[in-house]
């Protein structure tokens, strides 16, 4: 219970720090970039939207900083992110809601695939320690884990889109198709997702394999494994029921780190493939100097990551008695 409370506390504090940083970055930057943005958009958006922007960035306002800060916190927590300038007159919230499902689908599915396959391969490698598989895999995956996401994406494009022209490399679906629940559209979504997903999978699976392999190696030296052998349990039972179950728990706890890694990679992958998810929108906002959209995207990504980490924490508590007692 104490563990859960602590993790909840961490969630709230991290969120608060992220929001505060988000609030102060534009105000601390030299040369007031927000004002420059406003000048660019004057005349192109309506005056009331500009007024709201001025309020959001603390320009021409009599309100003291502290009051601006609490207004901002209130607005952010109630989901009022203001108006996007790139996609005017859509609100930032609408743009986010359009982008979020693509990212959640792409990153969510690939992360789960990477976790499942990586853990299984790592288990086998650790179990057959010193085998050909085990001596070959770690160096290979140490290297794949250090590859730049966007470059792997570009290589896949070169191979499958440019040279073989079998897979699309642009967007999330064929724009000539009308979105809907029919086979054509779903097929198009899937084929468009293959290359971005493969990129993330190739790079992120190595981390799971290596940590799982190392956890298994450590766990195998424990007494309860020797006990299980002494009892004459079958190898399969020891491998899955004893070694795997204990080795997978630290892996789950390491999820937080890997998630940040995958999210940063996903931003680059979405950019490389023009995949219309949150990362792509974030960079669109950056290129158009659309600061309200950019900041909202940052908040959105942070909240998503924090929620995922929290879910992981709860899972760890549910699965691991040690986490419940240690506090």
């Amino acid at each position: 219970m104490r563990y859960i409370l602590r993790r909840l506390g961490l969630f709230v504090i991290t969120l608060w720090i992220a929001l505060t940083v988000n609030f102060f970055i534009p105000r601390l930057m030299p040369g007031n970039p927000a004002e420059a943005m406003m000048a660019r958009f004057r005349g192109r958006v309506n005056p009331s939207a500009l007024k709201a922007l001025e309020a959001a960035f603390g320009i021409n306002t009599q309100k003291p900083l502290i009051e601006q800060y609490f207004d901002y916190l209130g607005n952010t927590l109630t989901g009022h992110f203001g108006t996007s300038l790139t996609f005017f007159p859509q609100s930032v919230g609408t743009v986010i809601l359009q982008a979020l499902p693509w990212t959640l689908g792409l990153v969510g599915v690939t992360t789960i695939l990477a976790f499942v396959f990586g853990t299984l391969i790592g288990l086998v490698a650790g179990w057959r320690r010193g085998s050909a598989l085990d001596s070959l895999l770690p160096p290979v995956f140490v290297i794949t884990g250090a590859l730049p996401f966007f470059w792997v994406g570009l290589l896949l494009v070169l191979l499958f889109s440019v040279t073989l022209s079998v897979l699309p490399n642009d967007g999330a679906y064929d724009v000539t198709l009308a979105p809907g629940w029919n086979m054509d559209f779903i097929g198009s979504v899937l084929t468009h997702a293959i290359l971005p997903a493969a990129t993330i999978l190739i790079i992120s699976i190595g981390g799971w394999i290596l940590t799982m392999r190392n956890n298994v190696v450590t766990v195998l030296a424990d007494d309860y494994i020797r006990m299980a052998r002494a009892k004459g349990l079958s190898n399969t039972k020891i491998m899955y029921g004893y070694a795997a179950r204990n080795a997978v728990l630290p892996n789950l706890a390491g999820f937080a780190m890997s998630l940040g890694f995958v999210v940063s990679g996903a931003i680059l992958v979405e950019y490389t493939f023009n995949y219309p998810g949150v990362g792509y929108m974030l960079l669109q906002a950056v290129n158009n100097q659309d600061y309200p959209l950019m900041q909202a995207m940052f908040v959105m990504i942070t909240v998503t990551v924090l929620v995922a980490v929290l879910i992981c924490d709860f899972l760890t508590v549910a699965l691991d008695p040690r986490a419940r007692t240690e506090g």
Partner: protein
Amino acid sequence: MTSATAETTETTAPKTNRRPSGSGMAIWRAIRGNGKALAGAILLFIFLVAAIFPQLFTSVTNANDRAYALSLPPSSAHPLGTTSYGQDIWAQLVWGTRETLVVAVVAGALASILSVLIGVAAAYLGGAADDLLSLLIDVFLVIPAFPLIIVIAAYANGGNLAIIIVVLVITGWSYGARQLRAQALSLRRRDFLESARVRGEGWFYIVIFEMLPTMISLIAANFLGAALYAVLTAAGLQFIGLGSPSSQSWGTMLHWAQSAEALQTGQAWWVIAPGLCIALLGAAFALLNYAFDEISNPALRPVRRNRRNRVRK
């Protein structure tokens, strides 16, 4: 009374004061004996030479000059061809090594210094200070760093090198700090530290001369991890156009290649070469890092005696 304590310490000192081995020599021996580490060290050495003496590899002195015919295929004059802007790709590659390595080494070193300071301080001070510092570490661990970096770089209007390095350090220290805190905690009650305390050494001496030398392989691993993170993140930033567009680096090369649609126009080398260099440098850091992991955690070393394995089957 005091003399008695001094006497007992003196007599026990030779036995208990022996630190767990781990010094510069040990690391060198470990690198030589470990295939992964050796491969990583050789790669890193080649890049170091290219960064310090680029003239050894190319006669071009200003690689960003648009001095040649556009989009030439590879030839003896231009080993990797030229870009659509008329720059020699091989020369850009060689001259780009320097900035990439500087970012890696400086950001990596500063981030590891920060992790050592915060991680060891948390473990050594304990109590409320530890709680506070641990919280700080946890917060920085879960905040998604890359989006934050993008936001900062966007407001800084395409960061120059210094800004990029500062941001990389701020976002890159937390993982190492957590590992170092854990190891420092496990050291805290060891005999050799107790005896140093009984000898009356100050905390500064104990931390610098007693604790840090025993943690050297973990610190080295952290430096490599932070350097790897810096290389990949800086390249990503430059690739999406948030670096300085006129800088000489591999990420910037990829940015221009992507905006000139090099893949679609058949200039594959423009994309493959800089990415391959980033990948090789990343591999060098990762291989060395993995080797240090094996050194600091003997349980992970490749088994030499296969006796137990045979019994299992």
